[in-house]
């Protein structure tokens, strides 16, 4: 039964990735080219941008126009919100979060990075590493993206020089080694001319690695998900009240870590009751095991009181259960975070409230320096905070689990999403 859902590696899987670059590094051109070369652009879309390119007086088809969505952006000619793009090759399906690069859009970068398995970061070969490039890498690493590709673009402007490429790489490495970057690849490209985007560049025979698309197709991402610590935040309790399922009580949710099997001993947190899994159900019938990111329904041996927001976990590797939260917060709102303020919190499937106890320091996103003695956190700023929640949360540090280790803060009067939080190990 399980193999109806689990599948062999030969079938196309899914890669979610994000792109970041400073204005004019060539991000739109690169994305346009990826879409064009994977035949993800339709004739009428191409016609529309050919027409728009002529109106702008361009003498070539501006592939960058493909990715500019909203009217405000078309008018200003820049990307100001996260946009999602879809393309596929025979080996993989891709969801691309296209995020703007300017410092004032840090919050959009954070948003795009939150769901990505891989980050593509553009660097302009003719300008080298900039403050912006460092910030992009920092944010991607903070958000726990396991795979990084640094695309050194516009190689045509530097005569496809291996020295320039090597220099940029060695300029960048000291900074990168200070961050948590598990897997890092540098690729020299020309988005405009297509070198090393899909096909190997004839202009850079000295580069022996894969072109970008081939790299994206083969990065192993399933290995990134934790299969050790079993976690299922309960979203919804299924109680049919129908004759044929009179006693059915199913706990529906998404597996966010580990593997869950019938017979496994589990604990429901924060309550702490222990029982065993009776069955792992789906609409297509019961299955032998469930793993991330499957949505399933668990039935349990004992009738215990579990409701939305509780987390079903393996008894061996338990998450932390606490009301005291140590976190890094990215601020998304124009009204600042200030100590003493209460916010609504959404963590996994639980809604609660929390008060900001302490703002320990602000992180300078360009230098990584810690500025202490700060009074508030403004839009696009990132800082280290201590929170106290109104109810205990069952969580893991973010670096162990990106789902059970993240939360959002919501302003209780405007209902705006104002903060993105990453949970850290508790202080002892």
């Amino acid at each position, binding site marked *: 039964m399980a193999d109806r859902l689990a599948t062999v590696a030969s079938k196309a899987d*899914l890669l979610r990735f994000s792109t970041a670059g400073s204005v004019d590094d060539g991000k739109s051109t690169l994305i346009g080219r990826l879409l064009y070369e994977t035949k993800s652009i339709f004739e009428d879309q191409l016609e529309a941008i050919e027409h728009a390119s002529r109106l702008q007086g361009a003498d070539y088809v501006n592939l960058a126009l493909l990715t500019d969505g909203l*009217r405000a952006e078309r008018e200003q000619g820049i990307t100001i919100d996260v946009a999602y793009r879809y393309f596929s090759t025979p080996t993989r399906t891709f969801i691309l979060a296209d995020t703007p690069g300017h410092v004032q859009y840090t919050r959009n970068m954070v948003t795009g990075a*939150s769901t990505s398995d891989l980050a593509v970061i553009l660097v302009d070969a003719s300008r080298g590493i900039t403050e912006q490039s460092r910030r992009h890498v920092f944010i991607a690493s903070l958000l726990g993206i396991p795979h990084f590709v640094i695309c050194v673009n516009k190689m045509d402007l530097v005569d496809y020089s291996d020295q320039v490429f090597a220099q940029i790489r060695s300029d960048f490495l000291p900074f990168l080694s200070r961050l948590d970057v*598990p897997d*890092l690849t540098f690729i020299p490209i020309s988005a405009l001319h297509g070198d090393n985007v899909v096909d190997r560049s004839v202009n850079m025979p000295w580069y022996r690695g894969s072109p970008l698309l081939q790299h994206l197709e083969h990065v192993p991402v399933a290995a990134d998900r934790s299969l050790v610590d079993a976690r299922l935040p309960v979203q919804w309790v299924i109680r049919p009240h129908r004759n044929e399922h009179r006693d*059915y009580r199913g706990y529906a949710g998404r597996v966010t870590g580990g593997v869950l099997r019938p017979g496994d001993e589990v604990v429901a947190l924060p309550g702490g009751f222990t029982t065993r899994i009776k069955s792992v159900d789906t609409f297509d019938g019961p299955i032998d095991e469930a793993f991330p990111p499957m*949505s399933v329904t668990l039935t349990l041996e004992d009738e215990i009181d579990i409701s939305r927001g509780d987390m079903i976990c393996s008894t061996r590797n338990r998450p932390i259960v606490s009301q005291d939260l140590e976190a890094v917060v990215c601020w998304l709102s124009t009204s600042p975070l200030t100590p003493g303020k209460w916010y609504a919190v959404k963590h996994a499937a639980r809604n609660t409230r929390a008060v900001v106890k302490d703002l320990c320091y602000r992180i300078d996103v360009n230098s990584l320096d810690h500025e202490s003695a700060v009074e508030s956190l403004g839009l696009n700023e990132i800082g280290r905070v201590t929170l106290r929640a109104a109810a205990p949360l069952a969580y893991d540090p973010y670096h162990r689990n990106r789902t059970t280790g993240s939360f959002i803060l919501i302003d209780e009067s405007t209902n705006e*999403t104002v903060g993105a939080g990453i949970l850290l190990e508790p202080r002892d």
Partner: protein
Amino acid sequence: MVLDSAILTLDERPPRQRSASARYSLTHLRALEAEAIFIMREAAAEFERPVLLFSGGKDSAVLLRLAEKAFRPGKFPFPIMHIDTGHNFPEAIAFRDRRITELGERLIVRYVQESIDRGRVAQPKTPGASRNRLQTTTLLDAIAEFKFNAALGGARRDEEKARAKERVFSFRDEFGQWDPKRQRPELWGLYNARIHPGEHVRVFPISNWTELDVWEYVAQERLDLPSIYYAHRRPVFRREGMLLAVGEYMQPLDGEVAFEEQVRYRTVGDMTCTAAVRSSARTIDEIIAEVAASRISERGATRADDRFSSAAMEDRKREGYF
């Protein structure tokens, strides 16, 4: 200087996890399905009065199957609502009634004609004018009537440029309006469902699906669809490069000639603005082959109302369109 390979690994992951990875991996379609089920359950749990919008098309067929996957053996935690423009393909209505009976769930229908009769909207004067735009008022009235605070729909981000940026939980103000510049940031799978009375949220469980994904899912799940999705012969005429069906509400104007053609539909909406494409695909596999090879986007080929300008969709969405 020759660079060996530009790859370096600063931190090797434990080999145990690597070897297990192939076994514990989902196809892209299973991953999209799991995400959609997750979104539906979030919507059901977070909102007191959700509703599932039904359009009669393939996206609705997919949503209904996803709802079964999310909530069976329980009942759906929401009714299903159809905004009827009156200009329906009879096949779509037959499909709707068939599916609702099978599912045993509650259907609500609200009619654009009633909005016209009550003077809420004006019937456009031009012959064969689309009622697509009028649906917005009927929908918002129905949302107010039932005090719905979440409406689940089948829109996808690949359909159109403005939609590429729309959130999965997409906030609507008290007038049903969407403000693309004031969208709530949406991180991880943490959807913000907090609203004030009178406001609502549109929820799009298949945001991340493409047209091809939808067809592959129809094939994988062997979903029933209105028959007009498959190639059939019918009288059509050409208008602005598109093939429109001759029918009760649509007649060729002067200079337009009706002829018979073998066609199928890629979307099913209001008859007056949904165009057919020439096709001989009679099975799902043939359709998938055709879609995979297709070089015209779904909207460009079949929606007359998007042709006015590239900002047409954005404008309608601002007003509260689906």
